C-alpha cells in the first residue's frame, strides 16, 4: 500500500471523489490531507508532531482539545497503516473529512464569538474612555468649584475677621457701659435685669462753682473741663472695686457692693471718694479753675439692673440712692457727707466729724457726719 501515497496517485484519488462525496468543502480537506500524506514518514512529520505537542502542552489546551487530538492521532495511525485497501482508505478519508468539517465549523464559531467578545471589549474600552473623559471633566469642574469655594471661604473668613473685630468693638462698647457680668447676661438673652443687693454704698458728687464758671467760659470749654475731670475719675476706677453708675450733668455717681457683693463696700467707696477729692485738687492746681466738689455717701440695700429696651444703662433704685443723693446736696465743698449708716460702718477706720441732725426731704431728721481725715485711712493699697 505504500505506493498509493506517491504524489501522483494520491493527488488523483481525493479529486476523483470530491464532487460526488464531499462537495466543495473537501478542497480544504484535500490540501490538508495531501500535506499530511506528503510529509508522512519524513523528518518534518516528526517536527510538526513535536510542535503540536508543545502547543497542546500549554495551559491545559491538550485537555480541552482532547477529542481533536485523538482525531489527529487517529489520522496518523491511518497514514501509517499500510494494510488498508484503497476503498478502506477512502472511507477513512470521508470520515476524517466530516470530522474536519465539524472542527472547521467549531473553529469558525469560536472565531466569531471571539470577535464579538473583542468588539464588546473595544466598546467597553470606548465607553470607559468616554466615562474617563466625563470623570475628568467632572473633576475639572469640581476643581473649579473647589477653587471658588476656597475663595468664598477666604471671603467668609475675611468677613468673619471683620465681624469679629466689629463684635469685639461692640463687646468693648458694651463692657464700657455695663459691668462685664451684666453684659454677659444681656448677650445670653436676659432682657430685664433687676438684682437686689443688701449691702452697698452709693456715692454722689457735685462740682461746686460750676454754675459760676459756666457763665464765664463757653459751653464747649465747660464740657472739655468736665470731660477731663471725669476722665481722671474714670482712671481711678481701675484701682478700686467700685462701679461707676453714670454722670448727670456735673454730677458723678458710683456705687460699691454691686454687681459683685463685697463686705468692705463702704470702705472702698470712701477710699474712692478721697481719691476723687485728691484728683480734683490736682486738677484745680493744674488748671486754676475755681471749683470744688461735694460728696455724699450712704450705705444700704439697692436694686441694680437694666430696664427698657433702648439705650441700656446699669442703674440703681431704692431709698439708699435717694439718701446718698441728699447727703451730697446737703454736704459742703471739699467734704464727704455721710449718713449714720456709713459712720457705723467706718468709724473704726476713719475719723468723722458729727454734723448733727439735718432734715432730709422725705426722710425727716437724720444724724449725719463728715468724713474728714484721710490720714486716718488704714487701708493698704497697691
Amino acid at each position: 500500500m505504500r505506493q498509493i501515497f506517491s504524489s501522483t496517485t494520491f493527488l488523483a484519488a481525493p479529486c476523483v471523489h470530491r464532487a460526488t462525496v464531499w462537495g466543495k468543502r473537501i478542497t480544504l480537506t484535500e490540501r490538508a490531507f495531501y500535506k499530511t500524506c506528503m510529509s508522512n514518514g519524513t523528518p518534518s512529520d516528526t517536527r510538526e508532531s513535536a510542535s503540536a505537542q508543545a502547543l497542546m502542552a500549554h495551559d491545559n489546551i491538550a485537555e480541552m482539545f482532547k477529542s481533536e487530538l485523538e482525531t489527529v492521532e487517529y489520522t496518523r495511525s491511518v497514514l501509517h497503516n499500510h494494510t488498508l485497501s484503497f476503498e478502506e482508505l477512502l472511507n477513512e478519508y470521508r470520515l476524517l473529512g466530516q470530522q474536519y468539517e465539524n472542527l472547521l465549523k467549531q473553529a469558525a464559531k469560536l472565531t466569531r464569538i471571539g470577535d464579538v467578545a473583542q468588539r464588546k471589549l473595544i466598546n467597553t474600552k470606548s465607553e470607559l474612555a468616554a466615562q474617563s473623559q466625563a470623570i475628568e471633566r467632572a473633576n475639572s469642574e469640581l476643581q473649579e468649584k473647589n477653587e471658588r469655594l476656597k475663595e468664598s471661604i477666604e471671603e467668609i473668613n475675611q468677613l468673619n475677621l471683620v465681624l469679629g473685630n466689629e463684635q469685639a468693638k461692640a463687646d468693648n462698647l458694651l463692657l464700657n457701659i455695663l459691668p462685664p457680668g451684666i453684659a454677659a447676661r444681656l448677650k445670653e438673652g436676659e432682657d430685664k435685669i433687676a438684682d437686689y443687693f443688701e449691702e452697698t454704698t452709693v456715692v454722689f458728687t457735685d462740682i461746686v462753682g460750676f454754675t459760676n464758671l459756666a457763665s464765664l467760659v463757653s459751653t464747649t470749654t465747660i464740657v472739655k473741663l468736665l470731660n477731663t475731670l471725669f476722665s481722671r475719675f474714670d482712671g481711678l476706677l481701675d484701682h478700686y472695686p467700685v462701679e461707676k453708675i453714670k454722670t448727670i450733668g456735673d454730677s458723678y455717681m458710683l456705687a460699691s457692693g454691686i454687681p459683685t457683693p463685697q463686705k468692705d463696700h463702704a470702705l472702698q467707696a470712701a477710699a474712692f471718694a478721697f481719691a476723687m477729692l485728691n484728683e480734683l485738687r490736682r486738677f484745680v492746681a493744674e488748671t486754676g479753675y475755681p471749683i470744688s466738689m461735694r460728696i455724699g455717701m450712704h450705705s444700704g440695700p439697692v436694686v441694680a439692673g437694666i430696664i427698657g429696651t433702648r439705650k441700656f444703662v446699669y442703674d440703681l433704685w431704692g431709698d439708699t440712692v435717694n439718701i446718698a443723693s441728699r447727703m451730697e446736696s446737703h454736704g459742703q465743698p471739699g467734704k464727704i457727707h455721710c449718713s449714720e449708716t456709713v459712720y457705723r460702718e467706718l468709724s473704726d477706720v476713719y475719723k468723722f466729724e458729727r454734723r448733727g441732725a439735718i432734715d432730709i426731704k422725705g426722710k425727716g431728721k437724720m444724724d449725719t457726719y463728715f468724713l474728714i481725715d484721710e490720714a486716718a485711712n488704714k487701708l493698704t493699697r497697691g
Partner: protein
Amino acid sequence: MTDITFTKTTTTPTVTGRVADGFLEITGESYPENSVEFYQPIFQWLRDFMDSQKRHLTVYFKMPYFNTSSSKCILDILDILQSYHYTSGGAVEVTWWYDESDEDMLESGKELSDGLDLKFLFMPYSD
C-alpha cells in the same frame, strides 16, 4: 445519579443541575483558570443524564461574559445536547438568556446555536 451544584465565584458561574426536574442552569460570568477542569463535571453530569434518564431536559444559559476557553466548553455542552437530541427524539430545550441591553451576548448565543437542530430559545432579561 445525583444533582449537581456549583456555587458562583468571581470567575465561575453558578451551576444547578436537578435530575428530577430534568433541568440544568449555568448562570454568571465564566473565565476560570482551567475551563475544562470546571466544565468536566458538567459534561459528565450530562452524559450520565443521557445514559440514565432518557427524558426531557431543559438547559438555561445566563452568562453575561465568558472567555474563549469557556466558549469552547459551551460548544462541547451543546454538542452533547445535540447528540442527546438525536438519540432522545427532540427532548432537549435550550434557553439562552441575555441582558436586554447586551446585543453582543444575543449574537454570541445565535452563533453558538447556528447549525444545531435543538429547540433553542432566546430570552432577554433586565436587571
